[in-house]
Each structure stands twice: as structure tokens, then as C-alpha cells.
């Protein structure tokens, strides 16, 4: 069972309290009624499903109820960081796994 840091509660809580909610950073087109089939395909059907770092949404279902984003390594299952919905996709390349990971623990009681 994973431990997940909720960026709203600022606490690490067991996975049981959370619900996975698909890939992150896929914005619903504002003019959705007018987009082409190809654009709709990209928006609705196509997902990255990478081996390695993935950006995904989670909801603290049995906690604060908020949706948030997470960067997780699908190989190690390790959460690299979590951040609030609406925040830009972080550049993990520069920060490096370890540094980002400790940043995500900011606010967690020791």
C-alpha cells in the first residue's frame, strides 16, 4: 500500500484514502464542441502510459476530497512529488528524484 502526500492536507496518508483519477495535464478544450475528430481523439482517447515518470491525478477521496496531481515512477511505484491541481507540470529533469521527493514532504511532521 502506497503512502501519498496530499498537497492540500499537507500530510502523508495511506493509499486507502485516495482514488486514482487518470492522467494529469489533459485540459478539456474550451471550444470542445468545435474541435476535429483528431483533436477529440487526442484529448479523450490517447494516453501516454509511460514506463518511468508519469503525471497523474489523484483525489483525496476519504480526506479533503480535493483532486491533485502527482508525479510517480511507474517502475518503482515511488511518488516523486504531488502538487495542487492547476499548478504547471514540474520539470523533474533538473531537480532530480531525491530533491523533488523531499520537497513533496514539506509540511509533513517529522
Amino acid at each position, binding site marked *: 500500500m502506497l503512502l501519498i502526500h496530499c498537497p492540500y492536507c499537507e500530510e502523508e496518508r495511506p493509499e486507502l484514502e485516495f482514488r486514482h483519477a487518470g492522467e494529469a495535464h489533459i485540459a478539456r478544450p474550451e471550444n470542445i*464542441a468545435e474541435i476535429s475528430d483528431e483533436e477529440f481523439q487526442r484529448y*479523450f482517447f490517447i494516453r501516454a502510459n509511460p514506463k518511468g515518470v508519469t503525471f497523474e491525478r489523484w483525489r483525496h477521496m476519504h480526506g479533503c476530497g*480535493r*483532486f491533485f496531481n502527482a508525479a510517480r515512477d511507474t517502475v518503482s511505484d515511488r511518488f516523486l512529488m504531488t502538487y495542487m*491541481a492547476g499548478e504547471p507540470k514540474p520539470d523533474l529533469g533538473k531537480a532530480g528524484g531525491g530533491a523533488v521527493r523531499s520537497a513533496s514532504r514539506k509540511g509533513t511532521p517529522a
Partner: protein
Amino acid sequence: MIQPFRLTTGRLDAAEILRFTFDGKSYTGLAGDTLASALLANGVHLVGRSFKYHRPRGILSAGAEEPNALVGIHRDAARKTPNVRATVQELYDGLAAVSQNRWPSLGFDVGGLNNLGAPFFSAGFYYKTFMWPRTAWERLYEPIIRRAAGLGTAPDRPDPDHYSNRFAHCDVLVVGGGAAGLAAALAASETGARVILADEQAVPGGGLRFETGAVIDGKPGWEWAQETAAKLAARDNVRLLTRTTGFGYYAQNMLGLVERLTDHLSAPDVDQPRERLWQVRAKRVVLATGAIERHMVFPGNDRPGIMLASAARAYLNHFGVAVGSKVAVYTADDSAYATAVDLKKRGVEVAAVIDLRPTPRGPHVEESRELGIEVLAGHAVVGTTGRLRVRRIEVAPVYGGASRQIEADALATSSGWTPAVHLFSQSRGKLAFDEETRRFLPGQYVQDALSVGACNGTASLTDAVEEALRAGAKAAKEAGAAKGRSKTVKLDARSPEAWSAGMAGAAPGAEAGKKAMAFVDFQNDVTAKDIRQAVQEGMRSIEHVKRFTTAGMATDQGKTSNLHALTIASEMLGKPVPKVGLTTFRPPYTPVTFGALVGHSRGALFEPTRRTPTHAWAEAQGAVFEDVGQWKRAWYFPQGGEDMHAAVARECLTVRHSAGIFDASTLGKIEIVGPDAARFMELMYTNPWQKLGIGRCRYGIMLREDGFIYDDGVVGRLAEDRFHVTTTTGGAPRVLHHMEDYLQTEFPDLKVWLTSTSEQWATIAVQGPKSRDIIAPLVEGIDLSDEAMPHMSVREGRVCGVPARLFRISFTGERGFEINVPADYGLSVWEAVWAEGQKHGACAYGTETMHVLRAEKGFIIVGQDTDGTVTPDDAGLAWAIGRKKTDFVGIRGLERPDLKAPERRQLVGLKTSDPKTVLEEGAQIVADPNQPVPMKMIGFVTSSYWSENCGRSIALALVEGGRERMGERLYVPMPEDAIEVEVVPMVFFDEKGERTNG
């Protein structure tokens, strides 16, 4: 003592003699025995028949790795545990064990004939022999194979025991209580860290139970282990768990442990859980899981009496049992010499030590020679004889020469030790192959763990203890638990014992080209030849070899066999071992009962049961209930011995003739409030909402972004900024989740608040021509006239003096009301409505009648008449889409070409040509019943009932181009016959819809 092979009482309690039976025969043992040690003390080696060939099998090991000695333990009629390893089952007074996989008896087994058919059962036989014809698989092959090849029999009664579950957190979890584990726990706990030490044995000590020469802290190893365990147990910051196996290493240092609490007791307290599952979250983990000895792979290596050298030694030194009266030793490793030495010193005749190596050296080798034991260096055991027990072994020089027979009633073998890296591997750590010692050892760690002692490849006791002390202190420090300066623990540990790499793979006599049966995997009856055959037939990866031969796939998961199989495959492939790969270790390390995993979550506690406020009333009325999700809903209310059909027919008629009262409290309810509430509704539902008047209701359809129906329900507007939304029963959580998702992440600027109110409101539906008359006396402050409160409207007022939301809506097609009152008042309002209803001949009705009545009107149920691939147009609900809207969830999905295709399945009504025939829901529909099989299926029945009001059966169905087929005859093929149906409109009753005002 009447246990002929018990030389001494070993470390057991001689005062306590225990009685037990094996296959009905009575024996005695001592307290502290395992079933295996007690059997051996009585000279019993034959304990089972092998899986495929039914070969006689004995006891291989003295521990958890046992592949052979699997027995059934029968406590009573309900407590029959199959596949128990005799080597870990502690003896208790009255224990009854039975052998498995034999018929009619263990000594004479008809299935042993399989042995003669061995070539037929060779590798991959499952895949090749029984392929065709397909029907023969079900009727012939499978039953025969299941009977012939198998393990124990599963109990046929529910498990009467109960199991508990605990979560625990600690600074340092140490898995394994041998010398290394104890030392690590000692050092970690010295710092004040919270430590959990788990050991699978009843008493910690690990390999010290057989190592005679070990001295730690000036005391004999075993004595030190017991003192240390007692010291640890006494510490407030240590939890010592014995009989506890660390079986799974999961993400972020969470480990699963299972603690066995009663399996060793003669008369367990029925209130005591049988097992306890520990889910431990540890800041640091120290793995001290030891090593597992491998057997030698040589012809006839599976006869009873042939066992691991360390096991023979454990039986001797710990249990005081000689495994034979004339014991031979066959080894490629130093450690087995100690077995010979210990046996000889206890007066057991040692036939010879056969060593594959040409020039073995070392203290134990010298000592063996000094004791007068014949050491045959550069020799191999190339065959064995003896029907139910080994009697003689054939020994030959490795590099040629005449063979010779040696009498022996037991053979202790060792080809070396395999570090138990199972948990490390489960933690996703990368294993590294050490070329020099030819072992897989922990390489790169992925989690916060350390390995110490034998599982880390550390051979000497001195090094292992030192490594463990360091690791324990380091783990505590890294866990942030070491407070101030704590004393560094130092221990002087020494032992003359050493173990070297040994060898893996086939020994002489079992080389390529030899037909001999040299077993690699005892439990699945896989021989060296089978592994080679797999490679010859094209298997390249060890994962393929494993699946083809089933090596390593039995309940022991190949603890003694994996490295042998891998080595043989690598030799065949001419590739180095690491290139062939190692099969993945997966939890559990040893078998875990379903009971332990499930804990209390079974029966009534399996999941929550939700009951409506009127549940007790309905129960008292004799209602029959059905499960709808977690809800218990009144299904129908039989009167005076009615069956379901009669009750539903009566309820259906009563509703349409006078009235019926129905508990609709399970409907999901969501309150949508805020200045942007209407805008939000516009986005969530296909319908227009901005112009819906206050006090008016509308039937809403919610889509997913792909354009398919997700939910539906009636929505009432209570104020400019307030909507009362209803959802399908059980649909409320996902609908609210869906709404929250859009509100939080796509439309965060909207000022809207969503609140689940499903549990807050009790909903009482009163439907039928008399419904207004029934509720009128109870309602205050609401004008119920058709002018003031037309169909599809909502008012707030009081019912029975209780604040209420009164809806005039109908899921029956009749004049109808739904009274919403706070749930706590639900029962008393229901009783008041019921009392009024009695005056008008109303009945209570259940969900079945609700279903029939709505089907008579062609009202759909999302999830029954839709399946996640149905659009509003498919369901005949295109009218509910706001044509002028520029956005709502699903607006673009609906425009996809496939969703507009004319041949889509559309919801229509069906009437059977014979009005008495009721179709089966889910039945397929075809246009021509005489076409050849497989027929083209053009749809299926979604809802089907007997309608007493229509005097005939009615059905709804999804049919390709259904609305174009009105009046067409279609067919529903059934096993006996094809049923003829006519395609009709969805509304079967009151087509004009006049009765809502009737």
C-alpha cells in the same frame, strides 16, 4: 521411550509426551517436535506421493522450504487443512495427520503406475497431450488429471475459525530471528528505536538450532539466542513475534506478516483468532532471512530417506532424532561434513561421505577422516534403490571407474546454499549474480532496507553478527530513532562452520542424454531432463522454461530447486546464468491462508449494509428484500402466502387502481448550490436549465465526455441558486465524484457547492389515482391542486409537521408524489402515510413492482436498459438534449461518426407473439432463426416482465435500427425454440400519458 530413532531428547521437553496419528496409526512424540521430527523419531520416512508420478516421497527439509512432506491436518469435520508442511507443523497432543495424493494407501498406490508412463508425463505434457478434441478436455482429461495429479483436498465446509488483522508502525523491522536477525534487533533496540522482530519458528535461533560449534558472547549459540530473545522480548520498545512469517514486501516499506496463533495448540480457545495478519509500515527494514540448502540432482534422488544435510543435522541436534541407522552423506560443499561428524559423534553409523570435489579440505573434512568416516572425494552418487525408502546407493568416481553399492537407509545431501533473497526481490531490489560464488545476492536497493547474514551472502558467523550489529544501529539511526549517544553493542561470535558456493545443476549421472529421473523440483515432479527438453523445444527465457515445465510453480515456489533449474537451462543454452534470467519472486514467501488475508471481512462484515428508514417496518410486513448495491430494498410484499408473481401482480394493479406507497429513499441526492448553480447544471447535463422555473422539475440526462449515458434523474429547482438533484440508486457517489472532478479541475471559477444529501432525506413515493387524497390530510402550507402544483413541480412545506420537500413526479405514469423528509422522521411519516393509504385501499409496493410499472411506461433504468454504450438518441431521449447549448459534458462525443450511425442499436419495445411468454433478460435477438450458427445477433433484451395491467408480457430491447423496425417480427433463440416477437413502441400502457393527471 517407544520412539526407536529418538537418541536423546535434544532440546525438547522430555516430560511431555504427545500422542498423534498419521494415516490412522498412533505414535508418540515430544513437546517441541514438529510433525516431521516426530515421524522420523518413529522411523517414518514415507509421508506422501508425488504430484505427477505418484512416487513415494519423504521428508526433505526441516523448515519452510519443504516441497515433499505435505499432509492434511484434520482437527474436526470443518477444520481439515490440506498441504501442511510436516516440517513446520508443530506437534500437539491428539494431532491427526493424513497423507495426500495416494489411493488406496500410501504404501500401495495405483497412481504409481504413472511412474511407468513417465515419458508420457514429460515437460509440457499439459500443453501437448490434451489439446484435442476440446470436449475431451472437460469430460475426460481434466477429471483424470485432477484425480491423478494433485495435492490435498480442500475442506468442504466454511472455515469456522476467525482471523484478525493489525496495522503496525515501527522504526526498524527485522525479518528473521537467527543469529544475524537477533543481533540486528539487539543493536537497533539499544538506541531506543521501536523494533519489531519477526521469526517464522516457534523459538528464534535460526541455523543455530543445528550449528553445534557456534559460540556467541561466550555462550553456545543456541543458548545465546534464547537469552537474547528473552532480553529483546522484555524491552518496551521491542515487539518479538514468533511463529510469524514475513511473506510479502510491498511498496514504501510495507510488509505483510502472518502470525500463527493456534495451529500448534491441542485445544485452541474458540475465541482466539487462528492467525493474525500484520501490515507493518517500517521506516527501515533489516532482512535476516538466512539461506536455504539445495539438494543434489542425481538419479533416484527422491527416495524417502534422502534429505538435506542441514535437515538431518537439525533433527539430530535439536530434536535428538537420528534420520537413519546407517547414514550416507553426498555433498559438493563443506557444510555437509558437519552432519557426518555430528552423527558419528552421537553413535550413528556413517556409511560414507561422497564428495563431488576431488580435493575437499577444511576442519570438518579433516575431523571426518579423524573420526574414521570414509570420505570418497571425487565421487558421485549415480543411483539409489529401495521401494519405499532408500536402501542402497550406487557410488562411482566422477572421472570414470567402477561403481560400487553402499548400504544406507538415509542419505544427507547438500549442493550448497541459496541466499533467501525472496523479500529483497519482492521489494523490487535488483539481484546481482556473484560469479565467484555463483549465487544471486542483493544488489541495488529500491527501498529503505538492508540485508544481513546468510541472505546477504555473508558466510561466517563472525562476519554475519558484525554486519548485523552495524546494520541494526544504522537502521535505527536512519529511522531518526537513535537518541543521544547509545551504547554500541559488541558481540564476539565465532563458529568453525563455513559454507562455500557448492554447485548447482545436474550432478554426474543426470547429465544431458541420460534418461535418469533426477529431480530438480520435487513438488511438481520436474527432472533435469524436463528442463533440457524445454530448452530443446525452444524455450529461451527461464520464465518460459518455468511455465513449460512448471518448475518452481508449486506451493514451495521452488525454494530448493530454482537455481538448479536455472543452471541446467543456462548450460543447455550455452549462456551465462544472469543472461538466462531469474524468475521473479512474488508474494507470498510461503502459502498464506485466505482467512488471514480476509480477516473479519466476511459474512455479514464483508461490506457495509445500508438500510432505509422504513426497513424495520417492511420487515415486520413480511417484505422480501433484494440487494441493490449495498442497499437492502423491499422487493415485494407478499400477503397471505402469495408467491412473488402473485404479489407483484396485485401490487401493480393496486397502484394503478387506487395507490401504492414505495420507499424511494435509496435514490441518490445531491444539493447543488451557488450563484453559478444553473451554469454548472448546464455543463453537467444535456438539458437546458437556465430557464427552468423555480419550483419546477426536469428529467436530466448526464453523459460522459464520450457521449454515452452516465446517469439520469429528476432535478428540482428550489431557488435561483439551488437545485435538488436525484441520481440512480447507488449512483450518487460516482455522480458526485464526476461533478466534483469537473468543478475542481475544469470549471474551478464557478461558484458552486456540491453536497451529498442521499442519507439526509427519506423519500416516500405515493403513486396512483388516490395519491393526492392520501397525502392531502398530512400536508401543510402547499396547495396540491393541479393548477397550483402541476406534474413535474416541487414545493417546500410541511408533511406531518416535519419540514418537507414535496415533489409531484411519477415513475409509474400515475398521478404521483414523492415526499422528502429528514431521514430521522422517515419512519413516522411513512406510518402516517400508510394509515391514510389504508383508507383508500393503497398497498405498499417493492422494487419489482416499481420496475414493472416503469417498464409499462417505457421509462428506462440506467445500467439496466443502458450499458455505457448507449446514447440519448439510442434510448429515445434525444428530446432531452438542449439543441441551442454550446457546451455540456459529452457534446463533442455525441458528434462522433459512430454515435450518429443509423444502424446503431436503439431501445424499442418487444411483444411476444404468445402473450404468456416472458422473455429472458439478456437474451439475444436475431432476424432469421433459421440461419446457420453462429447467427448474426442484432440486439438483446434489456428488461422483461409479466404485466398484469397489460394482461401480457412486455419487454424492452436494444435492437439494431430498432425504430425503423416497428411492426417487424424478430426472434429470440432459446435452447428449446426461437421465440417470435414483434417490435413495438416503448410505451405499453396509457400511451397518451393522461394518467399523470388522472
